[in-house]
């Protein structure tokens, strides 16, 4: 009897797995590490968080339209070792930042990991990547 209950639980888990829409979230993240682009825009939010800090920014494209970008950074401990703190970036800061864009063309990129840190200029001042 008990094994039937357990079997049902597994079946239910399987149904959940199939039915959950993976497209609901942007978090795919196979980035094109061979490609580096530079973005210029305004910080809308900076998430100082684990497992990754995130920079949210608005970038004006050639047609004058704003495009919202999310840039993945390292964990808090890795960013701290590079001299970052939660107030290193603030809403409204003007930034020029390099990033490796997502391979699927969404406005998502990675700009820092424990292994690398791409160039970042905040309000005209470059943040040294140690």
């Amino acid at each position, binding site marked *: 009897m008990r*094994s039937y209950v*357990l*079997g049902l*639980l*597994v079946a239910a*888990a*399987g149904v*959940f*797995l199939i*039915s*959950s*829409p*993976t497209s*609901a*979230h942007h*978090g*795919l*993240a*196979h980035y094109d590490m061979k490609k580096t682009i530079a973005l210029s825009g305004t910080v809308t939010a900076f998430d*100082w*968080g*684990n*497992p990754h800090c995130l920079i949210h920014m608005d970038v004006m494209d050639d047609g004058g339209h704003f495009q919202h970008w999310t840039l993945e950074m390292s*964990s*808090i*401990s890795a960013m*701290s070792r590079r001299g970052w703190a*939660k107030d290193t970036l603030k809403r409204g800061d003007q930034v020029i930042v390099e990033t490796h864009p997502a391979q699927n063309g969404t406005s998502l990129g990675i700009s820092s990991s424990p292994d690398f840190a791409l160039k970042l200029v905040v309000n005209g001042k470059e943040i040294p990547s140690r």
Partner: protein
Amino acid sequence: MYQSLVAFCKWLESTWWGTGVRTSLWVYPFIQLIHFSGLSLWLGTNAAVDLRLLGVGKKRQTAAQLSDALLVWNWIGFCIVVLGGFLLFSATGSTYVANPAFQVKLGMLVPLALVWHIVVQQKTRTWGQTPETPAAAKLAGLVELLLWISVVTAAVEIPNH
């Protein structure tokens, strides 16, 4: 169903422990340490019994004796790994439930491996009476080992998706 799951995750993220783990400098790696330590105890004791079912160390004790001796440590390990996993999940659960590797891990492989483990643990009491285990026991032990390797592989893949 998926939307209410995301809502639940968002609530977890807003709790004091979810926020604390997410925004802390050293708590996060410490919780990872708890998760991996519990995992080592849980998987280590699982693997020991599975290997014994396969015939490793059969002169020392029967599979039933080994399983019985390790039972408490096995489930203590389980409690630690779940506690650590729950806290890590609380920090950013909404991104995990959208992650294909996490979905495969927690939606399919973990329930399957867990059910398999419980059945094998029960059966070992009868299978493991003699030094030589029956063929069914060997197969069950091998399958459990492969299931947990699959779970860990899916877990390792989470950051890549």
